[in-house]
């Protein structure tokens, strides 16, 4: 694929904490981790999805003014960012594995509409829905 969406970014409260979460608990891989002064461009990838990167960014000055930084940190912590969706082959197995690693689940696996879904949050408050892919 040469055209399409290459990266979508999330706001996180702490990039080190987010990196540990997405890599160690979710099994993602680091794609890019570079610093320019205090600015850190950090992206991760799902191991089975090489054409897509998930950016983990911290709202900070001087890219944003102090008031906007505070507002964004509050919105993220309140779970106000848009929904995220992780497709898995086996929702219950993924739930067991991730829960054992300390992922904060907000909803246990539930069977409905012909599939199984669960819900979890990253440490910052971003909410993920985990849905078993329909086969």
């Amino acid at each position, binding site marked *: 694929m040469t055209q399409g969406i290459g990266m979508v970014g999330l706001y996180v*409260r702490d990039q080190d904490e987010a990196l540990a979460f997405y890599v160690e608990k979710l099994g993602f891989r680091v794609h890019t981790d570079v610093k320019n002064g205090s600015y850190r461009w950090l992206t991760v990838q799902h191991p089975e999805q090489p054409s897509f990167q998930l950016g983990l960014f911290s709202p900070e000055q001087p890219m944003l003014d102090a008031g906007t930084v*505070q*507002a964004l*940190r*509050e919105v*993220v*912590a*309140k*779970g106000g960012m848009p*929904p995220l*969706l992780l497709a898995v082959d086996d929702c219950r197995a993924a739930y067991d594995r991730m829960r054992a690693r300390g992922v*904060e689940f*907000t*909803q*246990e696996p539930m069977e*409905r*509409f012909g599939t199984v*879904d669960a*819900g979890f*949050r990253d*440490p*910052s*408050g971003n909410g993920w*829905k985990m*849905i078993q892919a329909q086969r």
Partner: protein
Amino acid sequence: MSQDPELLRRLLRAKDRMDAASHEKWPVQRLARVSGVSEAHFARSFKEAFGVPPHRYLLTRRIERATALLRDTDLAITEIAFQTGWSSLGTFGRTFRDVTGESPGELRSRERAAPREPECVPVCYLSAAYRPDLTIAVSEKRRQQADGTNESEEMEVT
């Protein structure tokens, strides 16, 4: 008015717990423990963060869930009242009407008459879209409608 993001993240945890088990009793003491703050601090901070007091948030979740069960299942209304956390069918019916403007039976009939096919939207986001927007207390809503009563909503949801 700005709030500490670390506190907000812990308040979100209490909100998540209510979402996951809205049929359970959630007195402020229990919620405050989830968030690791004092009861007085919890109630004030939650309302500031999420715009409604915790008990009213819980009420909207219960109504939302009852609405989904009325629409998507054939469960008896008594059973739905019980499953969504009410101990009395009368209180459920009255509160449901006060919040949504129609009785549980009326909502069910109306939804059945106009079936939709909403399954392409992941279920939870869909249900959030149907969440009642309770910007005022149910008791206040009742007062605004001339025939209302002045029961305390806290009694119904904790």
